[in-house]
């Protein structure tokens, strides 16, 4: 081995990435023992090894900016950060749910369109066609009663639940087509009321009917004959 080869191998020998071949180590060792100049070069190289380690450590001491790789990926792929994406999806979902809910609430509560004809014809329209329909309606309102069967239910104009003697009772209003005869009927179950059983004088415009466990108090206007038109 000559000095040129020895100096070359020396240069490689201090590099972790440049491992010497085992076959080269022994000849290099022999050359260093025989050549004072190369031995001195090896000694100097060893002496600056500390320098190299210190410089290498400082060379790699470069802080990496936080978040740069993620931002770079956004730029490369035209994407927003994952966190933003999650928030945007959640926000979009929340906005959609809100919009659907608001639409649903509006739809349910939206104003009903009423025409002039609806208003004009309403008084002539019956609410229920028979007493059984009224009983069913009142049952849904928590009032289990039997409506009077003597009325023409095509003339029924309203069904109300009113308070009488601190109890909830049904009040049915019938109006004849000519508007000259009308009657309001209170339905008083005998299980709740002990109502008078006698007839009332005709000029008081009230009539009491007791039938099938109920007292029907009928307040009427117009002539009794007119009322008869209402009564079947």
């Amino acid at each position, binding site marked *: 081995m000559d000095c040129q080869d020895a100096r*070359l191998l020396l*240069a*490689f020998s201090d*590099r*972790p*990435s*440049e491992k010497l071949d085992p076959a080269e180590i022994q000849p290099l060792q022999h050359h260093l023992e025989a050549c004072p100049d190369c031995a001195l070069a090896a*000694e*100097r*190289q060893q*002496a*600056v090894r*500390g*320098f*190299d380690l*210190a*410089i*290498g*450590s*400082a*060379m*790699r*001491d*470069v802080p*990496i*900016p936080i978040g*740069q*790789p993620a931002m*770079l*990926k956004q*730029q*490369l*792929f035209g994407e927003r950060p994952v966190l933003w994406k999650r928030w945007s999806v959640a926000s979009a979902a929340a906005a959609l749910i809100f919009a659907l809910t608001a639409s649903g609430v509006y739809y349910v509560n939206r104003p009903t369109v009423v025409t002039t004809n609806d208003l004009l014809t309403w008084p002539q329209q019956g609410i229920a066609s028979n007493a059984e329909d009224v009983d069913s309606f009142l049952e849904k309102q928590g009032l289990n009663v039997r409506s009077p069967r003597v009325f023409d239910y095509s003339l029924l104009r309203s069904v109300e639940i009113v308070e009488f003697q601190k109890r909830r009772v049904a009040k049915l209003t019938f109006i004849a087509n000519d508007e000259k005869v009308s009657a309001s009927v209170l339905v008083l179950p005998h299980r709740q009321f002990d109502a008078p059983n006698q007839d009332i004088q005709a000029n008081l415009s009230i009539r009491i009917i007791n039938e099938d466990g109920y007292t029907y108090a009928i307040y009427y206007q117009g002539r009794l004959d007119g009322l008869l038109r209402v009564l079947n």
Partner: protein
Amino acid sequence: MSWFGSNKTAVEALVDGHYAALYRYAYRLSGATQAAEDLTQEVFLQAQKMLHQLRDPANAKSWLFTILRNAYLHRVRAEKSTRFVSLDGVAEVADRGNAPVPIVDSAQLQAALNQLPEVFRTPVILYYFEDFSYKDIAEQMNVPLGTVMSRLARAKMVLRQSLTEHAEVTTTTAHGEGI
């Protein structure tokens, strides 16, 4: 499509695997954080476009480092305002191998690197990163192996002198203040 599946997956893998090393290299070459960020970004933008050129993923690191150096040189040539110290007399300067090892500060090292011409600075940076062999450095710089070793020897010597002088000045100043 590429060796990772899709181009996106491949580029993501390159960013995840090499961003830090490339940024450090860019910083040591340019000496400024903003320039380092810009250079590193430019590397990956170019890599994304030229991914088909990378046949073997094992060569990815060298490939990316080469792109970065070329991007840096392109910028330096455009600026043409940087002045460097001459290394003509360096070979004659005796290496002070027996001098005590100073504490090397990252900023001091950068100041010393900034004084080196790029052809000396690049090999010395790659050398001290210790991941690259002389052959790797020669291939990246497209110069013969002997040239790399010669430039490295001179650049290392200049760095040692610069950093030792800095340490001596600091020590002398500290002693002077104490008197």
